[in-house]
């Protein structure tokens, strides 16, 4: 059995040794907010936080998260449904179209802000470059992260 926490809830599961964290989130826990885009760690749609750091869940072995804390997009808004300011900012800046990459963008954006990589817009771009958006909503994504991170450093 593999025991870990997802969004503050304890989970105890029998997982296949080859199963990715992404597969467990989707197929076992029915947390479909984390998206599968490439199976390769090359699109970022499956980004989640593991012990507070962003990782791609498609390349994270489920068995390896034993005893650790996983946070997914479903754990970002408040219990009462209050949006996190970054979620709000994505809506305000229309930082999405189809929205398939959006959960990964938000998980990555939260980490980008927490890591302090928001000094200027190019720094945001460098540290958001692991999340593809095929609709090309990049302009809005930078603006949304900027809105939450505060003004750029001079």
């Amino acid at each position, binding site marked *: 059995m593999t025991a870990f926490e997802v969004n503050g809830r304890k989970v105890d599961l029998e997982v296949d040794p080859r199963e990715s964290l992404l597969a467990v989130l989707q197929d076992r826990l*029915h*947390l479909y907010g984390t*998206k599968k885009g490439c199976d390769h760690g090359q699109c970022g749609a499956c980004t989640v936080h593991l012990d507070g750091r962003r990782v791609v869940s498609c390349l994270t072995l489920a068995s390896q998260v034993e005893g650790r804390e996983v946070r997914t997009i479903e754990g970002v808004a408040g219990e009462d449904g209050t949006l996190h300011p970054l979620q709000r900012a*994505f809506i305000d800046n229309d930082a999405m*179209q189809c*929205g398939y990459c959006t959960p990964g963008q938000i998980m990555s954006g939260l980490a980008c802000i927490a890591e302090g990589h928001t000094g200027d817009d*190019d*720094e945001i771009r460098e540290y958001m470059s692991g999340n593809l958006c095929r609709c*090309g909503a990049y*302009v809005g994504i930078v603006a949304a992260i900027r809105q939450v991170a505060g003004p750029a450093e001079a």
Partner: protein
Amino acid sequence: MTQTARGTGSDLGVGAGVPRPDGLLKVTGEFAYSSDLYLADMLWGATLRSPHPSAWIRAVDVGPALAMPGVHAVLTHEDVPGERFYGLEHKDQPVLAIDQVRYQGEPVAIVAADHPETARRAADAIVVTYEPREAVTDPRRALFDPGCPKVGPEGNLVRHQPVRVGTVPPTAEVVVTGEYEVGMQDQAFLGPESGLAVPAEDGGVELFVATQWLHVDQDQIAPCLGLPKDKVRLALAGVGGAFGAREDLSMQVHACMLALRTGRPVKFVYGREESFFGHVHRHPARMRYEHGATREGRLVYVKAEIVLDGGAYRSSSPAVVGNAASLGVGPYEVDNIHIDAYGAYTNNPPCGAMRGFGAVQACYAYESQMDRLAEACGLDPVEIRVRNAVSQGSRMATGQVIDSPAPLAGMLRELAAMPLPGSSCSPDLRALPGGVAQTTHGEGVRRGVGYGVGIKNICFSEGFDDYSTARVRVELLGDEPHILVHTAAAEVGQGLVTVQAQIARTELAELADLGAARVTVAPADTSVGSAGSSSASRQSYVTGGAVRAACVAVRERLAALRAEHPGLGPAELLRAHGPVEETREYRHRPTHPMDPLTGQGDSHVQLALCVHRAVVDVDVDLGLVKVVELAAVQDVGKILNPPALEGQIHGGSAQGLGLALMEEIQVRDGRVLNPSFTDYLIPTILDMPPMRLSILENPDPAAPYGLRGAGEPPTLSSTPAIAAAVRAASGLALPRVPIRPQDIALAPAAPAR
């Protein structure tokens, strides 16, 4: 997904920056994409695909797959209940390969099993005996070599569309020629093909799927299942991007066949690699152009041969050829035109719809030619375009007169007058070509500026009966008037759900202004009439028109009721009378086929212009490019929703950037070499520059609200603008996109021009 928002007419109506109602679900991860659907008793589908681009099938043994525990069904072409072929315009594509395969990745057999991995393993266990044969992979040879094996049913020609205008003189004062090539681009939506088919009690099936056009799916699926259309009911599941790739069927018939056979729900989700084989791509093109002009740079003639590789099946190739031909000289006035556009069958991957649809390829070539002509005439690239620009009243290559504003010259002047970004003496690696991979600290970096102009037909052309249907219902829910808008139009991220609600608020403002009106856009499904495709930049126009028409009809009914019951307010009227519901079809003005010999005819509904300026820094030693800024001017007639519109221009520009600099499905001998996001590269956020936009609103009187379709034009003009900027920086001819690093770094020392 029901989308509801509240508010009054004026601040949430047409023209307002209303936030997308699906945004809340999308930022919380609750928006249900087709890949997220789940039923407790569902089975998983998998597809066995051909490893060969061309082969006879001598035998198929499904025994080993059927014997595997957990496998519920293994089906081949023999199990197709109805017609064995489907297709958008022409039914030439087998549901499952019969006696032969014509491209690598063609579906041969399908499996349903209780676990996705079991299904995949069972598919791999099917034994197919192939007899490989020569693959036809050169489209020119396919078309012009009589000895070439035949791929298509009647040969290798999908369509030849000539355009003949005036008399092309043997020469002109200034003549420039060029051969151009466009690689095979992939739509690369992030949410791969997926859907869930559920068998119904009436012997039919319900399919929840991500698609661009529910009814054309239904029209193709039902005959293959041998069912009447009313027993094949489709509902739109969340769509993870489309860009043309969901116009053709992928897993639809397969999922339904397996669901009907097993009596269980069946879900398909393609992986990324399979997705590269699961949908059509943008046609690769080889183009020869000759432009003749006066010394002053006025075009005298254009000759062109455009060869589009359609791959193994027809898909929408005929319409793509039509666009390439009718838009083949671009938005320029030319008296003498001689174009031959061809679509070819080959054993390469099938090609069909992708944003820009035939116009993208031609645009890259004719804009490259305009730059060559400018140089030959000693003119500025903006000036040569201004001198030849169409305007309202101009004739297109087809003879069609542009009958709504087309202020191209003014758009170009405005673009050229926009301030240029500062030079890159920044020490920051992120501002340099190569980024933090640190290939330069400024060495070899040269700045270039380039311009591109695109013209795109909006809506379906060439006589297609193109319409949409909307049902609008007003009723009291509780004590509040409530507006329900129902269409089958596919929201693929473009913001159509937002716009439908905005139109309802504007048209039914008398209800909305009561301050209580709720507008709900019902989930799209086939219980209402067809909305047509979410393609050709047409939904705001056609479905927008249908929603408006239905709202107007409801408004008129309410007015009549009010006349009968003077003194009653809207709520009281509804209470007294009950719900008011109207359904309307909306058709844009009719179009006409192109003459098969001359290409003449009023084939298009509406034409839309976009112009781009690209500023790039090129490391000419390594061939790496940083796009510093993109600026665009687009005339959209009427802005329905500013942020959604800007998003379309950003997104179209990003995909054009990808085609210019990095995106190509590499095919060798009919085989795809790079079916992954490791090697098929699409722009990251660091590749996409800031954009400067100017959006014009010169209304088209024929269109609802005067709007002009907006999603595709920026995809056209960004590619040649970036290519031109790279040429300006490098001094190289660069007759091919995507421009690869070696094309710059290893170019012969003396530039080709």
